[in-house]
């Protein structure tokens, strides 16, 4: 199979404009006849469902939560980037494009990234008009901050709840369409399979989480906006329900899965406290703007932080990266924290933590300013740890936060199954090997508001709408597949709980396919996962029945898919004999311990294809060309 990106050629500044003009349109009178299925209701899915409903399509939207407003986009704290240059500080579409390609360590598709930077400015306008209460200056204009390693102030924010406010904007637009009858919403409904007829995505199979009812929904196109797969690690900053199931089942129907090993570790999370821990809480990395990160110079120094004198502290990021200091990109900050802890200088009971200290900043600006900037984050920290960060430095440790990999899509956001589109974190497209801060919200909304409404029309205009019956063999087969998985889980009747398996799987993936990876470790992990997966199917205990509200059954299906994904992540990481972005192979580093890319051999997207149970996945490569941003060794010194 050859992967055709459909990325326009010609001057990049004009490519989206030209491409849009080349896309076929659907006659307004015909739009209602096309039924579009949208799975997921976060920034990407919610924005897509609302925008497609506004255009006049017949939209059916699904989410597993009790309301579309719960989608995990809601938890993003820091902000959203846009190349507005409102601050006259040298920002531009080109610079945002440049920063994103470089930040992604030259593993993203240039044309996609350029388009993302272009539409970023429209997103802010749209959100302001919807009533998103962005932070304002006294003059009434929008406030910005510099964020996550950017040297310009291009991040828009709404206190520490930017994701919440953007999501509520999209949710309100979606509810408006629901009220108008343009969108039909299916909450507490989980997608469990894709129906592919004659090579095209023609529908999905869902299970109602209220009563277990399995249903077939046909559509002229299917849009997956189901988020990332960080919960493969069990402990992550994702919500408990985040899962890979929708995109994984699509993978098993023929969609290629790109770069599964590109996962992002966020450097500023609250450290793990004990075995019962169910998730990790992120502290916005905007904290790194004012907090200083340090550890004691002496390994094993267990003194209380206040009694460690200045001269015996190591502000290791400021020391190693004088120009970026505490604002180096996420992967660098995370690995540096791990290195300090591995060397025995970690702090806190477990030794898995570093200090994030605000005392200098409080001295300089006064406590009131800090309350204004980070009040809610400080409160949250205190609520969770019982420690007051105005008095004692915070303790932080990296945790899994975002997954750059996902289903492969072309420039139109269409997967390798025609008619199956993938948006937001669920696709692989824009962040390369590492995502910059405040870019996830941007991508989700770009895909949902400003890209899919154009590209899906082109597909529909070229596709005949057809009516299918539930007796169609592909539909029957998909329903049988879903029912069989459920039965198998309920009938295993073993001894161990789903969570205990998930926790064990997570530990393996974190240990061997987390912040730093080696060929030996990955090989070992792949076989450990395979072994544990076999045991899972024999020995898992899922109580109750399908025909009821059964949370263990929901989890079991998701964990079953995480097992398969975990193995593929290891295989992908093993294949990529280089270090880039969030993927750090210990064998490939510079003498200073920085990631060493191998552009000659690995400047490609690794897209994996399902070849049947028990058979190795196939690898297809999409070569990457860099005509504008010349690959260079990232340096943040």
């Amino acid at each position, binding site marked *: 199979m050859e992967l055709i990106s459909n990325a326009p050629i010609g001057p990049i500044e004009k490519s989206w404009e030209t491409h849009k003009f080349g896309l076929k349109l659907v006659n307004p009178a015909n739009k209602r006849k096309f039924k579009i299925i949208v799975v997921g209701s976060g920034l990407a899915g919610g*924005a897509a469902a609302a*925008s497609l409903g*506004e255009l006049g399509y017949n939209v059916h939207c699904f989410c597993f*939560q*009790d*309301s*579309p*407003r*719960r989608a995990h986009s*809601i*938890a993003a704290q820091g902000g959203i980037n846009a190349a*507005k240059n409102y601050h006259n500080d040298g920002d531009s579409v080109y610079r945002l494009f440049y920063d994103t390609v470089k930040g992604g360590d030259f593993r993203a598709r240039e044309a996609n990234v350029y388009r993302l930077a272009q539409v970023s400015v*429209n997103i*802010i306008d*749209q959100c*302001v*008009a*919807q*009533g998103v*209460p*962005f932070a*304002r200056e006294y*003059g*009434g*204009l*929008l406030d910005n901050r510099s964020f996550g390693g950017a040297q310009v102030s291009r991040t*828009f924010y709404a206190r520490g*709840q930017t994701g*919440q*406010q953007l999501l509520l904007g999209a949710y*309100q637009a979606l*509810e*408006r369409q*629901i*009220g108008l009858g343009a969108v039909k919403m299916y*909450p507490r409904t989980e997608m469990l399979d894709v129906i592919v007829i004659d090579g095209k995505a023609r529908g999905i199979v869902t299970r109602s989480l*209220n009563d277990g009812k399995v249903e077939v929904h046909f559509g002229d196109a299917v849009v997956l906006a189901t988020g990332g797969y960080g919960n493969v690690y069990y402990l992550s900053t994702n*919500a*408990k329900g985040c899962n890979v199931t929708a995109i994984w089942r699509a993978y098993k129907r023929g969609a290629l899965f790109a770069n599964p090993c590109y996962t992002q570790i966020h450097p500023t999370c609250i450290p793990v*406290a004990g075995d*019962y*821990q*169910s*998730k990790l809480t992120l502290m916005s990395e905007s904290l790194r703007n004012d907090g200083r990160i340090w550890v004691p110079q002496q390994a094993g120094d267990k003194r209380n932080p206040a009694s460690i004198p200045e001269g015996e502290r190591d502000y290791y990021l400021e020391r190693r990266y004088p120009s970026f200091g505490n604002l180096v990109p996420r992967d660098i900050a995370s690995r540096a924290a791990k290195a300090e802890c591995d060397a025995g200088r970690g702090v806190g009971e477990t030794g898995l933590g570093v200090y994030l200290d605000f005392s200098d900043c409080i001295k300089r600006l006064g406590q009131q300013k800090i309350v204004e900037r980070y009040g809610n984050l400080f*409160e*949250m920290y205190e*609520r*969770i740890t019982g420690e007051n960060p105005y008095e004692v430095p915070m303790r932080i440790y990296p945790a899994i936060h975002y997954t750059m990999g996902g289903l492969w899509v072309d420039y139109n956001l269409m997967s390798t199954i025609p008619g199956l589109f993938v948006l937001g974190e669920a696709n692989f497209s824009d962040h390369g090997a590492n995502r910059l801060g405040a870019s996830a919200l941007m991508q989700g909304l770009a895909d949902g*508001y*400003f890209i899919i*409404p154009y590209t899906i029309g082109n597909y529909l205009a070229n596709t005949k709408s057809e009516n299918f019956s539930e007796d169609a063999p592909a539909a029957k087969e998909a329903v049988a597949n879903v029912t069989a998985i459920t039965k198998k889980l309920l009938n295993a009747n073993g001894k161990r*709980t789903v*969570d*205990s398996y998930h926790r064990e799987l997570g530990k393996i993936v974190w240990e061997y396919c987390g912040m730093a990876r080696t060929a030996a470790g990955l090989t070992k992990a792949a076989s450990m996962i395979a072994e544990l997966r076999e045991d899972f199917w024999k020995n898992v*205990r899922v*109580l109750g029945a399908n025909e*009821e*509200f059964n*949370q*263990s059954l929901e989890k079991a299906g998701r964990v079953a898919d995480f097992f398969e994904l975990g193995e593929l992540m290891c295989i992908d990481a093993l294949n990529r004999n280089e270090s880039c972005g969030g993927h750090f192979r210990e064998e490939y580093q510079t003498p200073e311990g920085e990631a060493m890319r191998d552009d000659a051999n690995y400047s490609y997207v690794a897209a994996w294809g399902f070849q049947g149970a028990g058979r190795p996945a196939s690898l297809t490569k999409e070569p990457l060309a860099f005509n504008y941003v010349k690959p260079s060794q990232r340096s943040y010194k």
Partner: protein
Amino acid sequence: MKLTLHVWRQKNARDRGRMVRYEVPGVNEHMSFLEMLDVLNERLIEKGDDPIAFDHDCREGICGMCGMMINGKAHGGFKGTTVCQLHMRHFKDGDEIYLEPWRAAAFPVIKDLAVDRLAFDRIIAAGGFISVPTGSAPDGNAIPVRKQDADLAMDAAACIGCGACVAACPNSAAALFVGAKISHLAHLPQGQAERDRRALAMVRQMNREGFANCGNIGECEAACPKQIKLEVIAQSNADYIKAAFTERSETATGGAG
């Protein structure tokens, strides 16, 4: 520490339901309340007993999916805290804790502690938005917004739609939830065009959903994990009354085209 829980168990909406007692030894003070329930559920599954159903998702106090009555108080009654962010250090060895679902006719029980809050979505669908189709927005800085207004809008917009206000209210009123959205959008210049319609539509939908009237008791404000203030109710009452008095039937004549 060792706790005794009394948990409302109800198989489905049709079941009568009952309180069931559970002993939970070995609770660590750093656990969150939901992690304590996870531990109990793991033990129940190992014994072959049906685990307790409860809604939750983000576990960082922002998605609004979790919520239950703890000893008669929504989310446990700790200031500005959802149950997922409530930690066991607030309890002590030997405590007896009573857990019940949100109680309100408009929030039917699905199972155990999980309830159906779709009524909230329908209220938003009725009018809790600004009508601005994608692509039709002017530049973000075209309309300045006073910082104070933006801040007040943000205060109200912080609502997570968890339903604690309804559960805490002796009348099961949804006035705080509805007021929060009306107040959020009323403070912004972008929200003015539909201000009257919004207030009328949202309040009418609220009444249709079976939420009772606000009695100005203020339990909702005390229970709100996002500390939404009662003044949002005053704002929505004012907007509703003004809109109701000036309401005229919508007139539109056919276009010439």
